[in-house]
């Protein structure tokens, strides 16, 4: 079954196509990486899929149902590229997770026993138990990312969308983060779409790759799809040579 099918998606701004006629499908349980140079429309594609920006034409089908904004029914978990929030916001990690758990319209400071246990389990899954009572604004980049993953999966989504999740995190943090994503994919059967600039990550973690430069340039398994010619055509000569050397080292 397809976790997501995107058909002829076009997004326009100021009479200019940001993305044009993008069509692809991702099988359930796969990790798909979206790559492309800066300004290629990767984040635009993700935001259009999520209904955060309107699209001119096209459709998005999620687990066999036509998806319109507001009807995800918690099927999608999302971690944005740069989380913009007030760092002085006196919100603890456990409060953030608690506010995301249904029922949506209930007294928020009263926690049921089951909810507390659920939050503990989630934080353990992402390796953030010790952060439970910390303020969100006091977390480091890597810690915040793990907490945001916990928030994204709090209601048991079937699709997890990560927009450059490891940007601004040190090498060790990135490794830990990608291991976590792989574990969630294996253990919970989550389908994952992640935007990444790091082609090494794509080779190591992704089952499928979607190469985008306003249009869909290529799609398939990374080792078969990301040929030198494809990479050069998307990123230019320099990147082609770099990837070639990465391949040889692997």
């Amino acid at each position, binding site marked *: 079954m397809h976790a997501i099918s995107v058909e002829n998606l076009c997004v326009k701004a100021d009479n200019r196509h940001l993305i044009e006629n993008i069509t692809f499908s991702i099988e359930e349980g796969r990790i798909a990486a979206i790559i492309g140079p800066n300004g290629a429309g990767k984040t635009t594609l993700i935001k259009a899929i999520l209904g955060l920006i309107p699209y001119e034409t096209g459709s998005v089908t999620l687990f066999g149902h036509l998806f319109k904004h*507001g009807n*995800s029914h918690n099927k999608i978990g999302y971690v944005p590229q740069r*989380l913009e929030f*007030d760092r002085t916001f*006196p919100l603890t990690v456990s*409060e953030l997770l608690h*506010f*995301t758990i249904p029922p949506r319209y209930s007294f928020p*400071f009263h926690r049921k026993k089951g909810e507390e246990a659920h939050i503990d389990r989630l934080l353990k899954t992402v390796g953030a138990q010790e952060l439970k009572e910390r303020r*969100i604004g006091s977390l480091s980049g890597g810690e915040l990312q793990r907490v945001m993953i916990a928030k994204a999966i709090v209601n048991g989504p079937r699709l997890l969308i990560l927009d450059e999740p490891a940007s601004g995190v040190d090498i060790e943090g990135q490794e830990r983060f990608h291991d976590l994503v792989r574990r969630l994919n294996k253990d919970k059967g989550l389908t994952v779409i992640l935007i990444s600039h790091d082609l090494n990550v794509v080779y190591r973690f992704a089952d499928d790759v979607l190469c985008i430069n306003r249009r869909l340039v290529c799609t398939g398994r990374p080792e078969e799809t990301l040929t030198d010619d494809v990479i050069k055509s998307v990123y230019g000569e320099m990147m082609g040579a770099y990837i070639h050397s990465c391949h040889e080292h692997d």
Partner: protein
Amino acid sequence: MNMISEYLSYPFIQRALLASVMVGILCPFVGNFVVLRRMSFFSDAISHSAFAGIAVGALFGIDLSLSSVIVAILIALIIAFLSERTTLSHDTVIGIAFSGAIASGMLVIGMLKGYRADLFTFLFGDILAITNNDLLLILIVSVLTVTALLAFLKPFLQITFNRDLARVEGINVRFFEYMLFLIIAIVITISLKIIGIVLVTSLLIVPAASAKNLASSMSRLFMLSSVFGIISGVAGLAASIYLNTSSGPTIVLVSIGIFSLTMFKRGNGH
């Protein structure tokens, strides 16, 4: 001690005390969202828009509280609509609506004949002039507002934290934002008689900002802001009676005093 019990036996003091407690809970409760969402300029614009409503009410002989609520809600909706539909920044839209409302109010006030003391009650507030009807209105609005905010606190806080994440989680961001604008407009206008147009925003912002300086969690933020609001209201009222000063400015100065102390505590903590 005798003096306190003597003052407390006066019905107008009892009403003022009750009003200061209710507004002391209500304003900071809503003010938390004003502070967290950086909407101080918006709330200032709404309170000054009420001036136009009062002027229109005085001109046409409508109840001033009612006319101020209607105009404040109208201006809040215009600001929300224009912010959404134009490429202008939020503060530019607020600035335009704000100056438009003030100019209209001044124009209408100029058309009124004679001296209108009741207008000054709204401009500078007079907690000692609160009537039983005012008290009942404040009680009803307080109960409804706090209940609505508590019932919808999860979506309100999710939107405050990050709008995009809230939308992905299926929250109708536009609905809740309009609802918050309406709540702010209503709370401001019912507090006008107590604190006045000029100072009402401070009752929303200052206790909430003081609580934000100290709170380590959202639950503490809501609790502390209400405590600071009640202390400001009651201590400010008591001080104004004892010192024979205007109640509105005294309440605000007490809340500023609490804010200064929390700044000191925050400075020590960091």
